[in-house]
């Protein structure tokens, strides 16, 4: 029982990263119809930024947790204006290629300066202990991540469902053309939403720095799973991406714990789940079939 609870907890912690990343991808896809391949690279930049801020300027974790997401959101907005924006009228493949190229460039720039080896980043001292849950104790930092990620997801959900800003974003996401016909400048919302999605990736990166290896390729493997998460949740579905993020974290953790005798299954469980979901619901768990234009 204790073991099960611990594995569940860990699954949720991994899931927290998936959820934050998938949420960003989902809002970007919803608004721009762009599959942002560079999302993993921005996650990496978040972690690396925290490392650089600490070592070059002595900026602590807590400040990095604000500075990096905001800084990367601004960078994302600049990139959207400079490049992504120009290609949105063309086949989505163009933006996929653009963001893929961007990924390679960002990875290589970091590699050029800091090498491929992982860079050290320590857990902030306030979160270095363990929390006692009676049956078991759990690293404070993990509890913090889980709480923080859930709070961010709930906050984003609240803004999206309960505010006028959220309403407009939902409308732009669901039917951009119709929304323009109702007097709303959809284009003006695109840039900040792109920046926001990138900021979420950066936030996940800063959170990852103390517990994951910080290196130029840290986002490259992760992002493949996050794409699977987004597909499972339903492309562009905000709720779906978060739910699938936590769900896949759990499935992976349980798979590792209880299917370790079947490594073939536990290693590929994410993609097995994805295949099953797509056969059953081609638009993903919470996705809608695109309305005919």
């Amino acid at each position, binding site marked *: 029982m204790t073991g099960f609870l611990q594995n569940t907890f860990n699954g949720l912690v991994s899931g927290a990263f998936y959820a934050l990343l998938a949420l960003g991808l989902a809002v970007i896809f919803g608004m721009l119809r762009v599959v942002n391949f560079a999302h993993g690279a921005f996650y990496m930049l978040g972690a690396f930024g925290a490392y650089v801020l600490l070592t070059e300027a002595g900026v602590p974790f807590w400040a990095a947790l604000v500075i990096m997401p905001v800084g990367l959101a601004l960078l994302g907005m600049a990139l959207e204006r400079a490049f992504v924006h120009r290609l949105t009228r063309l086949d989505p493949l163009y933006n996929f290629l653009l963001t893929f190229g961007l990924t390679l460039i960002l990875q290589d720039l970091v*590699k050029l300066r800091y090498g*491929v080896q992982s860079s050290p980043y320590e857990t902030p001292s306030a979160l270095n202990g363990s929390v006692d849950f009676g049956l078991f104790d759990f690293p404070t930092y993990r509890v913090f991540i889980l709480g923080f990620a859930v709070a961010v997801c709930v906050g984003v959900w609240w803004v999206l469902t309960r505010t006028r800003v959220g309403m407009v974003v939902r409308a732009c996401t669901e039917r951009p053309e119709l929304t323009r016909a109702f007097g709303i400048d959809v284009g003006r919302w695109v840039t900040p939403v792109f920046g926001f999605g990138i900021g979420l990736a950066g936030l996940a990166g800063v959170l990852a720095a103390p517990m994951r290896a910080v290196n130029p390729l840290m986002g490259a493997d992760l992002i493949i799973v996050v794409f699977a998460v987004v597909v499972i949740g339903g492309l562009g579905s905000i709720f779906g991406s978060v739910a699938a993020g936590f769900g896949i974290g759990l499935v992976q953790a349980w798979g590792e714990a209880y299917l370790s005798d079947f490594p073939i299954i536990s290693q590929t469980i994410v993609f097995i789940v994805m295949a099953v979901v797509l056969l059953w619901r081609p638009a993903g768990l919470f996705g809608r079939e695109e309305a005919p234009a």
Partner: protein
Amino acid sequence: MRRTVGVTAASAAMVVLVAGCGGGGPQSGGDGKLTGGSIVLGVLNDQSGAYSELSGRNSVKAVEMAIADFKAKYGDKAIAEDITVETADHQNKPDVASSKAQEMYDRKSVDIILDVPTSSAALKVADVAKEKKKLYFNIGAATTDLTGKSCNKYTFHYAYDTYMLANGTGKTTTEQVGKNWYILYPNYAFGQDMEKSFSTAITAAGGKVVGSDGAPFPNTSGDFSTFLLKAPTLNPKPDVLGTMQAGAELVNVVKQYNEFKLREKGVGLAVGLMFITDIHSLTPAALAGTTYTDAWYWNFDQQNRAFADRFQSETGTRPSFAHAANYSAATQYLEAVQAAGTDDADTVVKGLEGKEVDDVFLRNGKIRAEDHRVIHDAYLAQVKPQSEVAEPWDYVKVLKTIPAAEAFRAPSPDCKL
């Protein structure tokens, strides 16, 4: 950039042309002692990926240092004035490694290929060396198959292998830290090989593997907590967690090992394969007390340190054991050619077989004739606590020297040269 590539390609084409016109292609240099009148060393390794720091371009630098030292030593008595280095990036992909190796031997007139990390790539290159009948010193790869079922007359395995790592760390840790082990390995060829080697070494030393798990590879979630949580709950409780992960995955395991406070829970840490660069990534504080087997350590003695200082002035960083081994391998090859008076592969192999060597990397070294395993002293190393780290990169103290004869396995009956 493109321009440079173009110019390089053009001049390479010129060289081929000139060589072609010069009468007597590479194979027919009957009167000269050297094919093409020169010696070409090829460094084939990872120049952009996970191993690019512990081998990569700095391995090329090490080989260039060896050439310079060789020339300085022999002056005009050197067998060749023209000794050059060719280099290529195999991206850790077996098929790329194979085609680059063929290109090196056939078109770049390479006499010997060096380095080649990543076991699957290393084995492919061994096949090419055998087919082309050209020399190959593997340094960067760990698989014992290079001196086992895949051994061949032209392939030598230079620095380390999975047996050496397991034997050193597994045996000593079992004797000194605790008998009960939990092994965590990445579930692919290298990890499985390491798991087997470690289990054998642990059992032979009177220890017991109470559990072993293959973690997904690559571990896309970056999370190993399932396994780390499992370790202290096993019965009997393991004294040691042996992790066979490498590079970034090793970093993740160790970070999370510390997060879950396994050391405080009485589970020590032993690492299958670790490079000095990994310790740098994690900081000595995260690894303090961890034991592992090292093929060479830059600050072990005065001779190593002198080499490390020179290396640092060339590259700006301290050498990994792979860098030192590349230097040594290039040196020993050039010495063998000098002694043989020719770069003819079969003659050079004959000269190398059974040779006893002592240099900055090889201590009590011997190039075994039976399987072409290059044996030498290995070291049981322990990561220092942060407080004892006196200077950058000085992260390790050597607990024990493992004599060459014990460090490596006996020649395998699977190997027929």
